[in-house]
């Protein structure tokens, strides 16, 4: 499955040669909140990442990306001072945007679907699992200039584990630069 994901990323990066018409590409950085959902052994933390932006069509965007996230320390749970750090949740994958980011002074809403390899690890408990997962959400892009845009998105992440899944809500804002 990881090889398939890598293949998707490579195809996405090479897609410019297969699609007629002008295609934009750029890079972006983002960061924000990492909020655990139905995970009572974690608290809210942060997530940061980087992405490549490929815009083969005006309203379609493909974003290979890498995200480094961490949950907050759980603190006291059910009366027990857990005393451990929050888990790390890192991913690399591809997001597909329908609506895309604006170039030029525009506002634009978009929806997104993503697939990624999620690694969840806790150095204190020894928990360490990696598996393919999915995400989805909505966002709002703000074009500043023809090359620079900002965007904010909320993204529900579902990372399957050995049994069940870990879920989080990412509230992210980022800045993007289009080379072309």
């Amino acid at each position, binding site marked *: 499955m990881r090889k398939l994901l890598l293949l998707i990323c490579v195809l996405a990066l090479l897609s410019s040669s297969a699609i007629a018409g002008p295609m934009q590409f750029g890079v972006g950085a983002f960061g924000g909140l990492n909020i655990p959902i139905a995970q009572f*052994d974690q608290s809210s933390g942060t997530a940061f990442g980087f992405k490549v932006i490929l815009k083969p069509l005006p309203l379609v965007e493909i974003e290979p990306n890498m995200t480094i996230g961490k949950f907050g320390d759980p603190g006291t749970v059910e009366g027990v001072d857990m005393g451990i750090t929050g888990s790390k949740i890192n991913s690399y994958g591809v997001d597909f945007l329908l609506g895309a980011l604006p170039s030029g002074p525009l506002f634009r809403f978009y929806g997104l679907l993503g697939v990624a390899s999620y690694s969840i690890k806790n150095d204190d408990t020894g928990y360490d699992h990696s598996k393919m997962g999915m995400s*989805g959400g909505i966002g709002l892009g703000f074009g500043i200039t023809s090359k620079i845009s900002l965007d904010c998105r909320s993204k*529900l992440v579902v990372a399957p584990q050995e049994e069940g899944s870990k879920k989080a809500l990412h509230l992210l804002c980022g800045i993007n630069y289009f080379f072309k």
Partner: protein
Amino acid sequence: MLKLTKTLSLVGLIAVALFVTGCLISGTFVLWEGISFEFTAVDGSYHHSVDLTSNSIWDDHKDNIHFIDAVGLEFTVINENEQDVTMNIYAAPYETVLITDPAVFKIIDDFVVPASDTTSVSYAESLAFIKNISALKALVLSGKFDYFGTTTNNSGALFKFDGKIIVTISGGV
């Protein structure tokens, strides 16, 4: 075009919702049960059962407990003997009768409590020295298990262990 964009976005979100509802009905929960024993006899063992199924959190998710994410202990040991006492704690399947049963395995190995002292260990500290954690998780997943406590170098004064076993489970919401 704007209407198409909104429609596609909505369809995408619905597709995600339909997918994730299959995975959304699960979460990670923390529960604990008390573990206590005390010795006044010279050397020997203490035996008791732990029933997690009577815990309200376990009971809420009992039909969908998928995995044990973590197991740890939080405890305080009082040693009123005039010498250091060494403690060992073992786990075993439910209703194991004897500490010599082959299914019994050690989870705390040679924990020394200084003479005339009280020692406390936090959940986080216990994670570093619990032994046979995979076997312990498998046992905990069954919901009921036994534990044995032994001491050596105990001259008969009070030796008291008072603590909790703390379990993090992944289960259905």
